[in-house]
């Protein structure tokens, strides 16, 4: 069964979320302490972390930063509705997606499923994986492995999925809505910067092409395009 860790400073809420997720057949552990939260998240026991980044007592963004230093474990942030700063900062720090809190637990579960669905494809799949390549980029989607100019690059699961979609359509633009649907499992909302922030972290990790251009181009009103070189 899939193991999920929920980190939040509201213990009463943790109790309710625990019961709800158990009803949804997940194995759930909850944690209200930041330091213990980080070490448990890094233990390798969990398939996904739900992290409240607005915790006043323990800085949720700092927890996220520490998790990301050592791990690409999928992280779902809980953010305040309307608080763009926390949301963008969290995405920049490598969170996979966010849910505005308060949210219905049904919505939370739907998002968790969307992320897990794409991370768990790799489990038990054919190791003689299909190789995708364009220019300096090579990806082995089944193994969650990506190389840029022959050197391995670490991506979070959402970044990996986005890059894979762009690579499958290399040379042609992919709309933000398509990217959002296929990588996050939800349609792109207007002024939602989620995809933009993820693409900009991918760009940062890849660097530039020989001629100084970024390998992923923003195409006005059409989305993003991976250059074939």
């Amino acid at each position, binding site marked *: 069964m899939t193991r999920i860790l929920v980190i939040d400073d509201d213990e*009463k809420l943790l109790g309710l979320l625990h019961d*709800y997720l158990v009803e949804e057949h997940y194995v759930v552990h909850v944690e209200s302490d930041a330091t213990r939260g980080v070490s448990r998240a890094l233990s390798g026991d969990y398939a996904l972390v739900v992290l409240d980044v607005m915790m006043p007592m323990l800085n949720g963004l700092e927890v996220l930063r520490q998790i990301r230093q050592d791990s690409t474990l999928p992280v779902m942030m809980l953010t*305040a509705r309307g608080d*763009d700063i926390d949301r963008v900062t969290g995405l920049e720090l490598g969170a996979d997606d966010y849910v505005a809190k*308060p949210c219905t637990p049904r919505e939370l579960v739907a998002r968790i499923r969307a992320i897990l669905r794409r991370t768990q494809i790799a489990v038990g799949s054919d190791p003689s994986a299909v190789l995708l390549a364009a220019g300096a980029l090579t990806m082995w989607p089944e193994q969650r492995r990506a190389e840029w100019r022959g050197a391995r690059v670490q991506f979070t699961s959402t970044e990996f999925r986005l890059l894979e979609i762009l690579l499958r359509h290399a040379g042609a633009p992919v709309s933000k809505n398509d990217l959002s649907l296929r990588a996050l499992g939800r349609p792109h909302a207007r002024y939602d910067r989620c995809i933009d922030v993820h693409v900009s972290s991918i760009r940062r990790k890849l660097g530039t092409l020989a001629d100084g251009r970024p390998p992923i181009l923003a195409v*006005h009103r059409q989305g993003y395009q991976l250059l074939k070189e």
Partner: protein
Amino acid sequence: MIVSTLGLTESHRGPAGGGDAGLDIAASDTVPQATPGAVDESDRREGPPWVPVLTTLLASLATALGMAWYVAKPIRTLRNAFDAAAGGDLSARVAPTIGSRHDELADLGRDFDRMADRLQESMNRQRRLLHDVSHEVRSPLARLQAAVGLIRLKYGAEGPAVERIEEEIVRIDSLVAGLLHLSRLETGDLSGTEDEVDIQDLVREVVADANFEAQTMGRSVSWGTETAGVVSGRAAMLHGALENVIRNALRYATGCNEITVETDVSDSGEHYQLRVLDTGPGVPECELADVFTPFFRSSNSALKDGHGLGLAIARRAIEAHGGTISASNRRGGGLEVSITLPLKQQVPQPPAV
């Protein structure tokens, strides 16, 4: 006064470049062949009476200029600080530029600094309070929502009462979000960066969305002739502002089935003008100024579902972009909300290839 005296001297004595040159010429004119020593002698003897006058005048001019500068400089510093404060920037302080002077102006400057300190402190406190309150409200809301989800899932509770609870949670949450948004707009604490916003695109999107919503109620929202324009600002904020104005018309203009949006560019070419027109009951004249106040409800409108923050948020958002928003009753009945926004450039953006 001083300048005119010098001018007289020059015109009387013949052409000369300036006051001092005029003096030299005067001296050599009087004693053409005398040695330098003799010049001094003759000066002392029969020295023209205006020389000390002129010297005094020049000295007082210099003193006056010095004094004026001495007084005007701190006043200018103060004015800049006041301007900054009025614009919401309370970080400007006067003391560092005043130095060690000890007069009324210096006292005034120090008073300003003290005032700015206290204002800033109370503003920070208010911001923190709002943030804390919203967090405190949202925590129990989140628990409530999780609890309702759980009784649905675990105990199979369904029905209008459960749905009502969920709807009210969403309502309280959006009210808290609206209040936080308004307070951020009021304190100028805006997130995101400014962009070039294609206002034609934006209006088209908002009108299309609103029309879609209106049609489910058998009504419509339409935009007459489209007007192109580019505004510098935050698209999401402008989008929200316009959406709030149109939604307000949809909500309160009872009996009005058609809401129209009109746009044009001001005669000066500097402003984008937008009007949202309905044929509803309008608002009593004495209440027109209040429609942009948070939680205002017109006596003309039946109690509706909105939380009364939409137009207040719209006003702050428009004003944050250097624009204006006002409401008036139309001659034939109905309300007109007019928005003007300063244009960045008038040329429509070419469509992307």
